[in-house]
């Protein structure tokens, strides 16, 4: 049975546009032009139990809107969703007990009180038994290394510490489903790493299903085998993160270092020049030309060092964003 089943989900917002300037403000006072923004356009996917899925897309792609619909905060304009056997926007308490949503940019803890108070409040909200509560709190705070900070007012915590507290508060009732909206935004590298390791552990230990959005590729690479990519509200890709490169005919990158200066024009015939200065060049070329080009380059230039690499995943994803081909790559 699928954990999350989304069919043709659609959400449009009405908004107003105002040109700059006082004259237009006055004009707007009397006649506002209303426009419709299609935030999410017929998105469909399924997620099985225990899966950890990365949800990618540029800013404004519709990721957060989708998460809000799947957690019941927003009603869709049309379409269906079945999450854990419930329709999320009916907001049944039995449904709410089984999931959590953490938003990196929104604070869910009581600002003026220690995090332990907010966590205890969540314990009461979700009816967590005393014994389980104590064990979970000890375990979660130890893993995230924040035992000492539980009794400090939230407003005095750093961003990273606060995020860890948010995670503890969100997981104290052991939800089977976890939505994470940019959980590592603004965190330093050690904190990002800690949060990632923690999420991985939670996913594996409790078999929790995770749907994660992030702009840090490392988050998605480390945690999620499967990736769903949307842009401008439409689904672009659904599949293995590392197979995205395949979509672009398997481009390869050759990096060359020379002992003497080499003019850029001389390299042009071997492939697309990504960057070059006199002693260093990066070429992009299709995989089938790899052998031929390597041989030719080695023969014709004073090479001291060279490497062959895959296209960086970020590059492929950026290319995917630009393509905007609806449904073309949905596997």
């Amino acid at each position, binding site marked *: 049975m699928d954990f999350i089943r989304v069919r043709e989900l659609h959400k449009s*917002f*009405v908004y107003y546009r105002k040109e700059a300037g006082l004259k237009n403000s006055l004009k707007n006072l009397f006649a506002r032009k209303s426009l419709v923004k299609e935030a999410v356009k017929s998105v469909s996917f399924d997620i099985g139990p225990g899966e950890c899925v990365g949800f990618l897309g540029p800013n404004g792609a519709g990721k957060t*809107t989708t998460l*809000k619909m799947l*957690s*019941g*905060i*927003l*009603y869709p304009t049309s379409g269906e969703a079945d999450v854990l056997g419930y329709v999320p*926007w009916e*907001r049944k*308490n039995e449904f*709410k*007990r089984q*999931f*959590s*949503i953490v938003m990196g940019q*929104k604070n*869910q803890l*009581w600002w*003026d*009180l220690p995090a332990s*108070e907010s966590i*205890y*409040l*969540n314990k*009461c*909200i*979700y*009816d967590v038994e005393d014994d389980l509560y104590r064990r979970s709190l000890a375990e979660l705070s130890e893993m995230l290394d924040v035992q000492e900070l539980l009794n400090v*007012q939230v407003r005095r915590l750093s961003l990273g510490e606060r995020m860890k507290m948010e995670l503890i508060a969100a997981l104290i009732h052991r939800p089977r489903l976890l939505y994470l909206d940019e959980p590592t935004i603004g965190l330093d590298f050690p904190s990002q790493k800690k949060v990632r390791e923690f999420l991985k552990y939670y996913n594996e230990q409790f078999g929790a299903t995770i749907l994660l959005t992030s702009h840090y590729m490392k988050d998605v690479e480390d945690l999620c085998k499967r990736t769903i990519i949307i842009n401008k509200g439409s689904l672009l890709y659904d599949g293995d993160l590392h197979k995205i490169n395949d979509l672009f005919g398997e481009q390869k990158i050759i990096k060359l270092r020379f002992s003497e200066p080499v003019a850029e024009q001389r390299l042009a015939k071997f492939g697309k020049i990504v960057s070059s200065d006199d002693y260093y060049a990066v070429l992009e070329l299709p995989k089938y030309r790899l052998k031929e080009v390597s041989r030719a380059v080695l023969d014709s230039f004073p090479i001291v060092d060279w490497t062959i690499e895959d296209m960086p995943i970020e590059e492929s994803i950026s290319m995917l964003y630009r393509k905007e081909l609806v449904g073309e790559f949905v596997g």
Partner: protein
Amino acid sequence: MNRHRLYMAVFSMGIQHSMEYRFHFFLGLLGAAFPILVQYFIWTAVYQHSGQTALFSYSYGQIILYTILAGLVSKLIATQFEHQIADDIKNGGLNKYLIKPMSYFGYRLVSFFGQKAIYYGITALLLIAIIWLASARDVLDVQAVRLILFAFTLWGALLLNFLIAYCICASAFYLQEISYFFVITSLLVNILSGGMFPLEIFGESVVKALQYTPFPYTIYFPVNVLSGKTEAAAMYQGLLIQCGWILVFFWLSRLTWRVSMKKYSAVGG
């Protein structure tokens, strides 16, 4: 489900929250004293220059007692969550309550009572002192039944004022900039409730008209129950009407919020 425990936790967090900013807390207490002092001087001057012993059917002692009691009561029942709620609505803070198996209304109500708890205790102590002083000066005829009814109406006033404010808060779903709107409405509600001065000042017809609104039942009515201005029969009738208004506003607040929440969920927060 163990809702009792949840609301105990919310209540206790409300108390802690009110004590977190100690200076703000004491300043709030002090803040109640200033309007009372100002009014004290004004009324003293008015009575000295009028040469009459009673104005608007209040003797000098009675009007001062009214001013002090109304000042205390309006401070006690004052709601300060309007901006928090408006902020929750505007910046999506409401989302965190929507996804949890609890009611936002219940949470706000209990948290409000929690935040008021200490203030209620201190007000009770002050009231005991004032009642004792007033009876020693023969301004007040203390009767046990009036004291008990006063305590009841005060709780009713607290609840009714919460519900009125909660209804007004729903306007934040529709208005973009709300801060001044709240200043105006709370001031207006306070004046119409008799928080500034006895309603008799507005004239008999206005007092009559206001009897058909919920406002007098938050300040004017409880104070007059204690001071003896309200006749015995009218006290019980008033208590019933207060309960009636509480029910009406309970229903109204649920209705306005249900409708507004639909809009919120449709357009996003």
